[in-house]
């Protein structure tokens, strides 16, 4: 699942919570408003009822209902039929005090009312007083209230949403800067130590902690580099002294042929030691990531250079060196010297373990990926030995005096450049090394 940024998550949460609030309010507000408006109406009805009963008390029921008339009831309504008041005798002696929705026919028209019915006793007789208020007025009031409530809600929510989002943006800006600082750092020595400006204590703490950790890493890295450099000096200086001594002895022509050969043999051994030390140091430097990987390397050109340097060895062994390079522009961001060493080692190895036939070097593009392939018709590697060929000081062919470091170094260089290596081999038929370059 794709992971979201903190800022987006907060914004998303904010928007969602606001959406939930709006939905809740959309559901609740009409219900609340109608409750409120009914209660409001009811209060008015009760108040009016109070006034009417007071009026009846003070004027007497006779002023409203003529006992001699046939029509023994009183009714009053305004012309828009928004309100009506009626008084009529009640036959039952139960007391009534209810408010309810009800329909009344007034002047032949059916109207919805909120009606308060209330019974009173007057001169031993019971009367029912009804006060009704047309629901359409209630609805009008309710409608207005809802409209204003909604407009108000929408304004409030959009303003707070906007404020929240810009505040989150402002608040998280230092955090984003810290993240960016880490993203642009691919090596402890390239880290930017400028403190991020922030008013948030946590971010200051985070920034400072990262800085102090980075300083520690950088110090460890520099210590390691210093150490490798010192080891290099300590190991190679004595070698250099011996070599110079041997050179000087060799140049004194008074030596016998046998002594000269012995000294030359010693020089060869010394050279072996030198190469061992240099290869080990190179591997340590790769492990310590001291080589820059930002050069644009023309891989075909490097292959051509390697072949130019190494073809003498193939010629001396009467081996054909075939070079099939792609016409495409095969450029790669890496370290040119390391890539040179990588190809040199692989091709050198192919020549060393091949006695007849040819060595083929190919570069091609396959499924969007560039590939370099080095194939030989040499002795091959036993299947069970293939996994060990890249380990230090292990070699499938112990008869040839190899130190088993060349391929280990090559593997290191491949890993450092994220180049994938595939080895195929058949005994007495040959081997092929396929290097797949990352896109």
């Amino acid at each position, binding site marked *: 699942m794709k992971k979201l940024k903190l800022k987006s998550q907060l914004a998303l949460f904010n928007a969602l919570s606001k959406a939930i609030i709006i939905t809740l309010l959309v559901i609740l507000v009409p219900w609340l408003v109608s409750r409120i408006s009914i209660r409001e109406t009811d209060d008015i009805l009760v108040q009016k009822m109070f006034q009417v009963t007071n009026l009846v008390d003070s004027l007497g029921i006779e002023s409203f209902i003529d006992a001699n008339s046939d029509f023994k009831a009183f009714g009053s309504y305004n012309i828009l039929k928004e309100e009506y008041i009626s008084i009529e005798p009640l036959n039952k002696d139960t007391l009534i005090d209810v408010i309810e929705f009800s329909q009344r026919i007034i002047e032949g028209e059916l109207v919805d009312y909120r009606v308060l019915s209330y019974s009173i006793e007057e001169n031993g007789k019971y009367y029912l007083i009804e006060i009704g208020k047309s629901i359409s007025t209630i609805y009008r009031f309710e409608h207005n209230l809802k409209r204003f409530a909604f407009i108000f809600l929408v304004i409030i929510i959009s303003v707070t949403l906007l404020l929240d989002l810009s505040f989150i943006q402002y608040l998280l800006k230092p955090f984003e800067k810290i993240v960016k600082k880490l993203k642009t750092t691919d090596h402890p020595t390239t880290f930017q130590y400028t403190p991020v400006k922030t008013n948030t204590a946590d971010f200051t703490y985070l920034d400072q902690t990262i800085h102090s950790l980075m300083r520690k890493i950088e110090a460890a890295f520099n210590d390691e580099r210093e150490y490798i450099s010192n080891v290099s000096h300590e190991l*190679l200086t004595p070698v250099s002294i*011996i070599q110079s001594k041997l*050179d000087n002895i060799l140049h004194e022509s008074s030596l016998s042929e046998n002594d000269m050969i012995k000294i030359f043999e010693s020089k060869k051994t010394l050279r072996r030691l030198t190469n061992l030390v240099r290869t080990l140091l190179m591997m340590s430097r790769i492990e310590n990531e001291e080589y820059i990987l930002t050069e644009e390397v023309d891989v075909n050109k490097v292959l051509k250079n390697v072949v130019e340097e190494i073809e003498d060895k193939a010629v001396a062994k009467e081996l054909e060196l075939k070079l099939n390079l792609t016409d495409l522009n095969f450029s790669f961001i890496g370290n040119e010297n390391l890539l040179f060493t990588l190809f040199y080692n692989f091709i050198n190895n192919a020549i060393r373990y091949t006695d007849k036939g040819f060595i083929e070097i190919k570069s091609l593009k396959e499924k969007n990926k560039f590939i370099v392939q080095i194939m030989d018709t040499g002795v091959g590697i036993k299947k069970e030995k293939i996994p060990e060929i890249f380990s230090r000081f292990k070699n499938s062919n112990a008869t040839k005096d190899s130190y088993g470091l060349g391929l280990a170094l090559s593997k290191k260089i491949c890993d450092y450049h994220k180049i994938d290596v595939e080895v195929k081999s058949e005994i007495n038929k040959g081997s092929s090394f396929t290097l797949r370059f990352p896109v």
Partner: protein
Amino acid sequence: MRILIVEDEKGLAAELKQFLENNEYNCDIAFTGNEASELLAVNPYDFVLLDIGLPDYNGLDLIKEAKEYNSEAYFIVITARGELEDKIKGFDLGADDYLPKPFSLLELNSRIQAITRRKFGHKDSVINFGDFDLDTTKRHLKYKDRGIDLTKKEYKLLSYLVLNKNRVLDRLQLTEHIWGEFFEDDYDSNYIDVHIKNIRKKLSKYDKTEWIKTIRGIGYKFEF
């Protein structure tokens, strides 16, 4: 020619001095940066062999200092630290060449000669043997004004042998000179022999003299 050797390893300094004096250079030795700094201030040297791994001094500062004294000296930087950065820095500060430890003394001599030729122009730049002319600045070989076609490596090999004439050059020295400091581990390979065979063939078309002598088990010698 006067050379200052700046090297804190006394054993190595002594070998360098012995070799260079055998080649008729005058040598002074400074074991520390301070000594070197004092010597550079008062003496006009032609060359300074500088080990930048000095205990008391950043070797590269010495180059800076020397340039301030308007010294005409050429600097060959020696280091066992093998740091690429130092290599680049060294050239930036005016080092003229760079040798990683351990190096062959002949290679050192060849670098000194190369710088000398580069800086002092055409003097001594053409070497004659028989009717052959080897032009070390234009990098070609002629026989009585007829150009002889040599490959780059053949030319390099021949001129190295000629410049160190009457001296046995072993395979390691020849390899180091031509192929540089690769991670070479085929010491018994005969690929140098292939080049020598070709050079001999090309020379013998014009002149039957055996210029290049094989030293069994070691290498070759140019006799003249």
